[in-house]
């Protein structure tokens, strides 16, 4: 019995493939393969004329299968599927051979590349022969969006979606939204006060009727799929009735317990019942049960007595909220690098070695010193060193550039000069002022008096045995000398790092991480907000270090992505899911606990496993584990995969 008629289309990709693979040889080779009735090569198969070749051949030769040898399916599979569909062929009868990313781009050996391309094409032809026509399905979409993380990225995304008239749930782990930006003092390059530009957005988010704000809350569980994510959120007990509380602050004033304030980066104190900062949104305190005397001993209850509206609720319990969402935006932010892991910086050993965020708090008018830059002993510093690249651009810690530190350092230098008479030494490796008005800002600060820019990495900080102050060791690479600079304060501009629970969060939302630990975007350049999990988007510094303008841009971009999902009202679900052949399933239940999407259940009456195809992502875990072979993934079943292996191995 003759096989289906197959057409093979070999793409030069300009010179991307043609430079390494002999196009004529590959085309002729493909033409000789069994069942191949036409094989062609073309400079750009993805171009309109390239696609037209396929469409025309489907009609002329009555093609029943199409094989395109070109780039990765991630690049152009949709293009060629569409071309087939327009040409009158079921799009799932098209198979791609990746002879670019997996062949021409990864070798300098032209002969070897041609051989490999032939093997890949033979493999694709083998699989194509066994392909089956499949139909896309569409499911309705819940119009709500969940945003996880209420920093500036999450707030921006929430506002954009809400202003477009769609519902948003904004979930924040801390008692207030605002994120890291709320801690900052002035922002580069304009020296706006961070709170002045952020708090209006925070207030808008709280007041917008389309936004449901859930602070002091965490997402516990996510299941489902694009358009229909089932999410469980735990809203932790504040110990305060939010409806009654008027935010007067009496409770915080009277609470007798003082603990280090996380918001002040450990420098100031807060009470056991507290709002993290004066402009907190919502301006409703929470009780820190670990430190509250009542929860430890059953006594105290001072806050309850003094509260004018009687809003304190010691017996309040966590609230579990279950909601369905069409799209999810993850904007969980970053964690500052902990410089205490490197002894050379003396962080934690010397009182006046502080991190950038600690400096922000010192300089902030609502911070622990009321905006004065002071040493630990309360005196004004006379010389301040600012170190760039602490924990970044350093193979021992993080290879990446943290992007914001150069500009932050320049800003710090300016603020030190503005607030004190101290000399400033700015120790930089390279000065990277890439953003709009950044270079101008740098030039302005360079011109200020008593700021010394030294090109070199601050290598070590130690105590000055003579003065008792600090000494910063640096190789001044412009002068070519080693220097020891006496200072009394050192600011470490630490790297932005992935949050410590990034892996857990990634698993929860079905997203991946790149080698640096940040969340992985679908395409570094062209799909920065999308993830491999359809309907889950990322924004802000959880994706990579970035400054405020870029974070806001991504927030808005992610909002556009989410709106695209909810506005359409329905999503296409791929038919390349798992399928159980009931007549073969023995009901051993091996697959059920393995499914990462809880898509498999058990039908007791029939004694067989059942796949919910709307939940299934086609990952293949179940099919690989199915002992009897009753489970298969459509478009990737055992026969097809084996035929591909045979195609690669045969020669």
């Amino acid at each position, binding site marked *: 019995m003759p096989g289906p008629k197959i057409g093979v289309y070999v793409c030069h990709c300009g010179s991307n493939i043609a430079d390494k693979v002999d196009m004529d040889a590959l085309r002729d080779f493909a033409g000789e393969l069994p069942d191949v009735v036409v094989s062609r090569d073309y400079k750009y198969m993805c171009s309109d004329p390239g696609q037209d070749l396929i469409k025309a051949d489907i009609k002329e030769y009555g093609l029943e299968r199409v094989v395109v040898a070109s780039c990765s399916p991630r690049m152009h599979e949709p293009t060629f599927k569409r071309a087939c569909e327009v040409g009158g062929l079921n799009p799932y009868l098209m198979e791609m051979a990746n002879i670019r990313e997996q062949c021409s781009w990864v070798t300098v050996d032209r002969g070897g590349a041609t051989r490999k391309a032939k093997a890949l094409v033979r493999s694709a032809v083998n699989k194509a022969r066994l392909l089956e026509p499949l139909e896309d399905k569409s499911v309705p979409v819940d119009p709500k969006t969940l945003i996880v993380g209420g920093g500036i990225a999450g707030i921006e995304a929430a506002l954009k979606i809400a202003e477009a008239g769609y519902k948003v749930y904004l979930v924040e782990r801390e008692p207030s939204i605002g994120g890291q930006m709320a801690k900052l003092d002035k922002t580069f390059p304009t020296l706006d006060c961070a709170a002045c530009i952020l708090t209006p957005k925070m207030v808008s988010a709280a007041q917008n009727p389309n936004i449901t704000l859930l602070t002091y809350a965490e997402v516990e569980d996510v299941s489902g799929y694009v358009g229909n994510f089932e999410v469980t959120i735990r809203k932790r007990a504040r110990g305060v009735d939010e409806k009654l509380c008027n935010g007067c602050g009496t409770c915080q004033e009277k609470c007798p317990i003082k603990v280090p304030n996380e918001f002040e980066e450990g420098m100031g104190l807060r009470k056991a019942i507290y709002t993290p900062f004066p402009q907190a949104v919502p301006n409703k305190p929470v009780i820190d049960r670990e430190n509250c005397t009542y929860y430890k001993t059953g006594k105290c209850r001072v806050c309850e007595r003094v509260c004018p509206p009687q809003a304190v609720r010691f017996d309040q319990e966590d609230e579990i909220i279950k909601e369905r969402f069409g799209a999810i935006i993850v904007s969980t932010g970053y964690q500052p690098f902990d410089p205490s892991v490197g002894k050379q910086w003396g962080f934690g050993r010397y009182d006046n070695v502080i991190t950038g965020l600690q400096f922000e708090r010192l300089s902030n008018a609502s911070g622990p010193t009321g905006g004065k830059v002071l040493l630990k002993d309360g005196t004004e510093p006379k010389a301040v060193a600012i170190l760039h690249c602490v924990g970044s651009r350093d193979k021992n810690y993080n290879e990446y550039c943290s992007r914001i530190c150069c500009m932050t350092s320049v800003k710090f230098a300016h603020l030190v000069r503005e607030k004190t008479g101290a000399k400033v030494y700015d120790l930089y490796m390279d000065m990277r002022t890439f953003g709009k008005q950044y270079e101008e800002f740098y030039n302005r600060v360079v011109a200020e008096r008593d700021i010394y820019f030294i090109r070199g990495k601050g290598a070590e900080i130690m105590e000055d045995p003579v003065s008792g102050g600090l000494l910063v060791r640096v190789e001044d690479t412009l002068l070519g000398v080693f220097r020891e600079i006496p200072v009394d304060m050192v600011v470490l501009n630490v790297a932005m790092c992935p949050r410590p629970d990034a892996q857990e969060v990634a698993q929860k939302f079905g997203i991946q991480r790149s080698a640096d630990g940040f969340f992985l975007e679908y395409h570094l350049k062209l799909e920065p907000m999308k993830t491999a999990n359809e309907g889950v988007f990322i924004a802000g510094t959880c994706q990579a270090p970035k400054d405020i303008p870029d974070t806001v841009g991504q927030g808005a971009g992610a909002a556009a992505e989410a709106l695209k999902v909810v506005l359409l009202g329905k999503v296409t679900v791929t038919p390349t899911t798992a399928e159980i052949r009931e007549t*073969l399933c023995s009901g*051993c239940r091996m697959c059920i606990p393995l499914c990462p999407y809880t898509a498999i259940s058990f039908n007791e009456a029939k004694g067989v496993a059942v796949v919910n195809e709307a939940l299934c992502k086609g990952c293949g875990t179940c099919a690989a584990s199915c002992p009897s072979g009753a489970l298969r993934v459509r478009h990737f079943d055992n026969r097809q995969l084996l035929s591909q292996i045979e195609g690669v191995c045969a020669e």
Partner: protein
Amino acid sequence: MPESKKKLKLALYWAASCGGCEVAVLDLDEKILTVAELADIVLWPVALDFKYKDVEALADGSVDVCLFNGAIRNSEQLEIAELLRRKSKVMVAFGACACYGGIPALANQFDRESIFARVYGTTPSTVNPGRVLPQTKLPTPQGELHLPTFYNAVYKLDDVVDVDYYIPGCPPPPDLIWTAVEAIVSGKLPPKGATIAGERALCHSCLRKKEEKKVTAFRRVHEVIPDPEKCLLEQGIICSGPVTRDGCGTRCLNANMPCRGCFGPTPEALEHGASMLSAAATMAEGKDEATLAPILDGIVDPLGTFYRFTLADSLLRIRNKALVAGAEEKEGEEAAS
């Protein structure tokens, strides 16, 4: 005699096997008499004194059915398999060894040389100071004697000849044999290539209670008395039920013993052993390599356990018939000369 013309001609043969399949035929009990009424047996080395030359004398295709048990280990077995194939209308791979290689195929972990070295050299009971090894030719005063060549590997029957039907089992249970006999007699034969057994895995017939497949320790049957009501796998006993064809009547499970896999893989399972290996591995309840390793170390002899009957049927080795037969023949000649 017109009546005897209607009688079926039946051949039974044993190759590399233990003889259990022969006993299984006798296990038909009184029905064996019915078989004798319905069929004339033309070859049955274990029971009747026909010679190979008697079969050679028959016309090609004149034998209605050949029940062939045992795997192909040497050149004599190959020769008779080919002879019986020529003479028979229907060739049945009878029992696990003919279907999948069976227990003899576990020797495929080793080559001929190491098998000989072990068997004729280093086993504790061997006394062989002259290091005498099996030969294919032996000169004697009466002339040269020829003996079969021991192959480098064990093959299942369909590696060497075309097979029409498969009856699996170690040995095949009498009811399946009877089903096959009835099908042959009535002429209601299934499509060529069919396996006379269930389509699903054995778990389908197993009445034990199945809950969650999570195992913190694997145990061997002699180490524990299993709960007869509960899934054996869930009790940490390697049971090949999920990967093995149904149809045996859950004989082992009824005796509170795990399935050993003698019915071979289900029709859609690619690899019997690897499928079970993967199933066992997914059940191990551990977080990382450090916690998983001690659990999986509890599986003693994984290859022999998971591939107990099907190593010759595995993708782990080349199954190309032409390659197999050709290479072995050539090798045999070289070894002999």
